[in-house]
């Protein structure tokens, strides 16, 4: 069984060699050379330093295209015209599945035809030199954003290529993404990634790591997300990571979102070792968007106001074209500027909302229950405990496709639009906490004059794309379509 222990040097070396052997560009990686490249970079490209020393929330979009020159242009555009403080490089789907050969074909086809045959930047195929050209060509720190369960080769190449921030984690890039991902194996893969980041850190190149907070992006109760962030943070810290950005995806209730971000920061700082610098990232709404740019701007606006009140260290912005998939660079930049204008105007004034501390207490109590259960399941070991807690459902993620998860808990909004557990499944929560959730949903049921049921869940999943926060029954119908919900 996997254990939360630091990967030994010889083991690291063995895995590194084996992983680098799986694709030709792996040969380009040379650690000493990589350190020298990082040292040559201007201080304003140091991701961890820029993020950790900022005085207000920094904005970062998502963006990735196949070709290097186009990726450079895209990032320059988002930096200059969108005002992005931090930049992304989103990796293509083939790379996420470790299908580097298919990514290579897609890249070649893109080069030949000009039409993008990949949905992101195939960093492994571009190799260390390609990554370095990207890093040197753009005037802001850049993060690798992906969704790759086994990101070992991607990490080896991109960190050697000059990236100083790397998204993902063994739970957050596995449980919400795929059906057949072995969780224990994925933890081992990420121990390698984190150990590599730790090694760079020990040599003076602080690599920022960012577990993916939104998970399935679909009504995830804050305590579940926070527990997973803390666990991934602990696993990373063991491997030597010292700059950790814990994530959280907006649910749309301002009080709950602000409370969650405060709880995330507090629990992150409490659970993680003192030598780790904890920052937080807030993702604008990750669920279904309205099929209308004007309405989408309204959803983005609520995220901006929430960010202004919660003041996370970083905000990942959405674009008004979210509904239709990958946005144009203009729409991507527009999402940044809409967020900036509203966030700045709202940050310049006091906006103290009632009820945040009470909600935060609730979230923290729940999160502690979940983290405690993980440690108990592992007899004190967080790695082993995570695998077992997911097996029993003591830790679970709503709407997770993974067979490694129990998949028994179901969320719904309460009468105030906060995300509660309609069905706690086997989550390791106190009876009292479970009763609080049930009571809140009962109150909603009374308001709506219907019994609490999966109808609420179905309606809630579609609510924001339909122009509402809560999926209230309309007319005689209590269910509505759910098929295009996720």
């Amino acid at each position, binding site marked *: 069984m996997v254990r939360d222990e630091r990967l030994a040097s010889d083991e690291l070396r063995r895995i590194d060699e084996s992983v680098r052997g799986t694709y030709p560009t792996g040969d380009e990686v040379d650690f000493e050379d990589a350190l020298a490249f990082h040292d040559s970079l201007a201080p304003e490209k140091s991701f961890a330093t820029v993020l950790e020393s900022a005085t207000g929330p920094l904005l970062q979009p998502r963006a990735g295209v196949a070709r290097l020159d186009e990726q450079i242009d895209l990032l320059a555009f988002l930096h200059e015209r969108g005002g992005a403080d931090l930049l992304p490089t989103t990796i293509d789907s083939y790379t996420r599945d470790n299908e580097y050969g298919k990514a290579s074909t897609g890249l070649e086809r893109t080069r030949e035809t000009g039409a993008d045959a990949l949905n992101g930047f195939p960093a492994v195929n571009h190799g260390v030199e390609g990554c370095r050209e990207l890093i040197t060509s753009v005037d802001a720190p850049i993060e690798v954003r992906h969704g790759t369960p086994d990101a070992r080769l991607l990490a080896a190449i991109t960190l050697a290529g000059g990236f100083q921030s790397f998204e993902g984690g063994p739970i957050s890039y596995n449980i919400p993404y795929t059906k057949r991902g072995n969780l224990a194996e994925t933890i081992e893969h990420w121990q390698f990634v984190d150990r590599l980041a730790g090694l760079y850190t020990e040599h003076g190149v602080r690599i920022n790591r960012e577990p993916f907070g939104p998970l399935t992006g679909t009504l995830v109760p804050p305590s579940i997300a926070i527990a997973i962030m803390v666990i991934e943070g602990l696993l990373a810290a063991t491997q030597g990571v010292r700059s950790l950005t814990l994530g959280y995806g907006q649910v749309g209730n301002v009080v709950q979102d602000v409370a969650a971000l405060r709880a995330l920061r507090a629990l992150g700082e409490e659970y993680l070792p003192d030598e780790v610098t904890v920052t937080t990232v807030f993702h604008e709404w990750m669920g279904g968007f309205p099929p209308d740019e004007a309405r989408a701007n309204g959803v983005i606006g609520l995220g901006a106001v929430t960010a202004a009140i919660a003041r996370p260290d970083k905000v990942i912005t959405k674009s008004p074209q979210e509904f239709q998939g990958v946005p144009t660079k203009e729409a991507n930049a527009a999402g940044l500027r809409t967020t900036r204008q509203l966030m700045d105007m709202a940050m310049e004034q006091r906006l103290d909302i009632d009820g945040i501390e009470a909600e935060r207490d609730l979230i923290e109590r729940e999160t502690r229950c979940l983290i405690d259960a993980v440690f108990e399941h592992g007899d004190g070991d967080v790695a082993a405990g995570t695998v077992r807690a997911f097996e029993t459902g003591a830790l679970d993620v709503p709407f997770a*496709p993974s067979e490694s998860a129990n998949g028994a808990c179901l969320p719904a909004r309460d009468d105030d639009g906060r995300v509660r557990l309609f069905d706690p499944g086997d989550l390791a929560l106190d009876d009292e906490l479970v009763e609080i959730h049930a009571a809140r949903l009962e109150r909603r049921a009374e308001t709506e004059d219907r019994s609490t049921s*999966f109808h609420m869940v179905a309606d809630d999943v579609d609510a924001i794309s339909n122009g509402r926060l809560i999926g209230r029954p309309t007319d005689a119908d209590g269910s509505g379509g759910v098929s*295009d*919900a996720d």
Partner: protein
Amino acid sequence: MPTTVVLGVIGSDAHVVGVTILERALEGAEFDVINLGVQSSQAEFVDAAAAHDAEAILVSSLYGHAEQDCAGLHDRLEDAGVDAVTYIGGNLSVGQDDFEKTRATFETLGFDRVFDPESGPTEAIAALRRDLQLNATESERLRVSS
């Protein structure tokens, strides 16, 4: 004796929300549900239906490749001796604008019913009741009274 239904998302599709809610709705209506989850192959549908003597198979697909994913499924079911009604629902074709054409396509493939993206669990359950000649249970009638 409860009626057994198999459901799942076919092909490489990882959209899980709809099928999760459908599972709960079917359980609420007192069906025995075998939920294969996302990214399920034709073989998994066939094996599960045969092993559990399912009376209905509900296929979900939301990523627009349902036609390729389902081609040949009904031959396999017949080969395995499965005698179940088959439904499919979701976003069944990329850029669909004429649902009646989509419905005809999937009926030709052998599906007994084809549901459009606006359909909810309620419609699927009502159809199962009609096709399998079942009555709503007492608890279920209370549950859907909202």
